[in-house]
């Protein structure tokens, strides 16, 4: 090291980490971090951001390269080593013991005294809590806490150990905008306190809002570090993806629309016995993407599940109009004249056979639809095993399908038989959506298909949905990001408290309009009346 080189709080040199023989998660990464600075680590899903930071926090060991702290090489062999060096990581999936209190979780792993002095611990926790304005109750059990509170416990846990280098892995993924703002205030307070902070994210506006510097990774390689003030979202996206990307979402026009699904006066009860859907009526057309917007828990899940036959309808009808067999993608269109087929009362299997497909991406991606411990081939087979009765399974078609998906959707995996839970989140989602599309449905329903996905993966999913639409499929998509819904969907159905609040045209509606419909049935006319 020459005298001219600055000494950084943490410096990574040539860090390499491999999983198996084929997947190189980190390929000779160099990175520097200083105190009193917030560094954003930006990259697509599977680009190796979390893996890299896991090596700083002692979860993984690097295969090659060295880590320097204040210019001196250090070895981080375990999370304990990391803490000893003042490095604390707040993981995306919180590492908390549910049945313990906040205080118990905070002191976990510490050895100051053999006895557990609950009063003393609670006092110290309150002290930190007051300093940065967290406001947590040391005696509250984790399972009683909201997501945001759990995150706060994680941060306090790290600070309690005296960490001055903090790593946050996608801290805002599960927070509401208000909670995110509060978190950012806390981060700024800690930065002012001289702490070095790394925030892993793929949300560009957050990068711009919070960080001083941005380091970009792409496919396990280090691309570069730029000052936030000297860049913009477009440039960052190009660094991340490797080529120019249009941030506009395509909305091609289908050649024809015909009625595919008609819901009439649908009433459903939620799991707690309270009405989840009240008198819901709407139509979904083939060749269009119908967005479904609403505040979380407004009946979106129940609506999709009712159509898929997973949720019992108390009353009302769901009619399905199959496309005319002579219609095709090339534009030859024969209108449907047949009467609709009632879906209410049919089993999920019967409904699936008709061609109504549900690609539901729950918060926990592996929770519904995929078996984490099985490989892609086996997961493909889950959907098709009923087509080939008999005691033996033919693994060739699902294997071919899996390989096709890997190819077309650029899924990064060591092999078709690697358990899907070992893939990164975005890749798992691609497997799920890809499989649903492969069954060539006539109605494709997805919920939060891009939740937690980076830009490139999101655009792949949008492209897939648009392709389906152009094939004449009726696409129903529950989304959370209004900007995306307005850019992608032809029409948007807005739900409010289980009722249809309104249906707007995606091309002409504004964000404010939809926002009002989300909170007031009928678009805030009552609200205006009051005013």
């Amino acid at each position, binding site marked *: 090291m020459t005298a001219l080189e600055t000494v950084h709080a943490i410096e990574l040199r040539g860090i390499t980490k491999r999983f198996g023989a084929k997947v190189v998660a980190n390929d000779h990464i160099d990175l520097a971090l200083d105190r009193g600075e917030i560094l954003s680590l930006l990259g697509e899903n599977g680009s190796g951001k979390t893996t890299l930071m896991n090596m700083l*926090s*002692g*979860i*993984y060991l690097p295969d090659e390269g060295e880590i320097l702290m204040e210019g001196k090489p250090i070895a981080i062999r*375990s*999370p*304990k*080593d*990391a*803490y000893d060096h003042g490095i604390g*990581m707040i*993981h995306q999936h919180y*590492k*908390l*013991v*549910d*049945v*313990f209190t906040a205080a*118990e*979780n905070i*002191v*976990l*792993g*510490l*050895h100051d*005294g*053999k*006895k*557990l002095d609950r009063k003393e611990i609670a006092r110290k926790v309150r002290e930190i809590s007051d300093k940065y304005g967290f406001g947590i109750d040391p005696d509250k*059990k984790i*399972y009683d806490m909201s997501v945001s509170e759990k995150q706060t416990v994680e941060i306090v*846990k790290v600070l309690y150990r005296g960490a001055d280098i903090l790593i946050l892995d996608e801290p805002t993924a599960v927070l509401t905008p208000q909670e995110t703002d509060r978190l950012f205030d806390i981060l700024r307070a800690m930065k002012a306190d001289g702490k070095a902070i790394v925030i892993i994210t793929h949300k560009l506006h957050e990068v711009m809002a919070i960080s001083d510097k941005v380091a970009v990774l792409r496919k396990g390689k280090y691309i570069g570090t730029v000052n936030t003030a000297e860049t913009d979202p477009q440039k960052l996206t190009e660094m991340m993806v490797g080529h120019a990307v249009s941030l506009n979402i395509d909305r091609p026009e289908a050649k024809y629309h015909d009625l595919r699904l008609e819901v009439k006066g649908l009433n459903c009860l939620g799991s707690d016995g309270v009405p989840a859907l009240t008198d819901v009526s709407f139509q979904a057309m083939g060749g269009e993407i119908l967005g479904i917007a609403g505040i979380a828990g407004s009946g979106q899940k129940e609506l999709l599940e009712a159509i898929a036959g997973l949720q019992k309808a108390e009353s009302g009808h769901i009619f399905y109009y199959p496309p005319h067999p002579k219609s095709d993608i090339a534009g030859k269109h024969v209108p449907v004249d047949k009467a609709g087929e009632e879906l209410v009362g049919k089993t999920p299997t019967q409904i699936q056979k008709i061609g109504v497909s549900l690609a539901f991406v729950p918060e926990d991606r592996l929770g519904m639809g995929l078996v984490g411990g099985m490989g892609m081939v086996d997961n493909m087979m889950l959907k098709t095993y009923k087509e080939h009765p008999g005691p033996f399974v033919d693994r060739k078609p699902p294997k071919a399908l899996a390989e096709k998906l890997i190819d077309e959707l650029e899924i990064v995996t060591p092999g078709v038989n690697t358990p899907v*839970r*070992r893939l990164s989140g975005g890749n798992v989602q691609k497997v799920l959506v890809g499989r649903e599309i492969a069954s060539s449905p006539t109605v494709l329903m997805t919920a939060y298909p891009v939740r937690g996905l980076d830009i490139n993966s999101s655009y792949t999913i949008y492209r897939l949905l648009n392709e389906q639409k152009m094939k004449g499929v009726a696409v129903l998509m529950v989304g959370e990001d209004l900007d995306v819904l307005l850019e992608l969907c032809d029409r948007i159905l807005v739900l409010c408290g289980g009722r249809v609040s309104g249906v707007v045209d995606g091309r002409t509606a504004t964000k404010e309009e939809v926002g009002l419909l989300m909170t007031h049935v009928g678009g805030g006319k009552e609200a205006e009346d009051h005013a």
Partner: protein
Amino acid sequence: MSINQSFLVLLISAAVLNGTPLLFGTVGEILSEKAGNLNLGVEGMMYMGGALGLGAAFYYEQAAGGSANGIVAVVLAILFAFLAGAFGALIYAFLTISLRANQNVTGLALAIFGTGAGQFIGEYMRVSAGGYVAISNALKDVFANSPFPAALRGLPVVGPLIFGYNIFVYVGVIIAVAMAWFLTRSRAGLHLRSVGESPATADAAGINITRYKYLATVIGGGISAIGGMVYIMTIAGCVWNHEGLSGEGWLAVALVIFCLWRPLNAIWGSVLFGALMILYMRLQLPFIPSQLYKILPYVVTVIVLVAVSMRKKRENQPPASLGNAYFREDR
């Protein structure tokens, strides 16, 4: 008839005596399970503990002859029973923690292995000692009688119910109370519970998972095995009795569930199970075969499981990671 000979007092004191081997078995298994290791080999470890405990006392007396000291014999019996169980648990720990073998399969294998090993040692001692392993009555008394003076034992009601038991009852209660304190009031106990609940969390907090799991399993196995020795040296009368010991280990596993993984519950739980085990001798009802009585502890366990599952209180659930192997780099 004095009150100390009344049906209830006799039943309770017999229940305590019969429950004590279970108390050791259960408290040891709680320690192991709290660290996430479901060791189904309790039965095997209790057999090994029974055989080696008896052997330790027997060969000590053979060696020392007439100068044999009762206390030394008790300590040796406890020590060797503990070592036998710890050895069995060490095999289990190596397979499940270091090699990440399936815990259920390994535990069952240990149950079978330990039962066989215990029987072999027991039978070998019997044959080589000329058909009958027996220690002198003086030593037997130290194992079976109360350490308290006669004046205390003779008190009405509290005499037999508090002071009338053999030394192992008191040792068992002390271990259970100490275990409860350790698990809830000490740092190490907190760390151990976190290993059983969420090893990834414990690992990220810098806790040495492997060390905690090994220690909990090995020490827990040793404590469980003392239960086997207690059965042989008190209830079976210092004679190798493989039939009597059979099933004690499985009852201990059931009792762990019954007492919701809490050592303090194990104290009264073991008394209840002890009572249910001997009820057929004390309370005979017409037309009800004694075999039906013997399933009572299991029936009670099932009822408790149903009740606990219905209430869904998080604290009453088994350790969240019970039965799972932990591998840090597995995602």
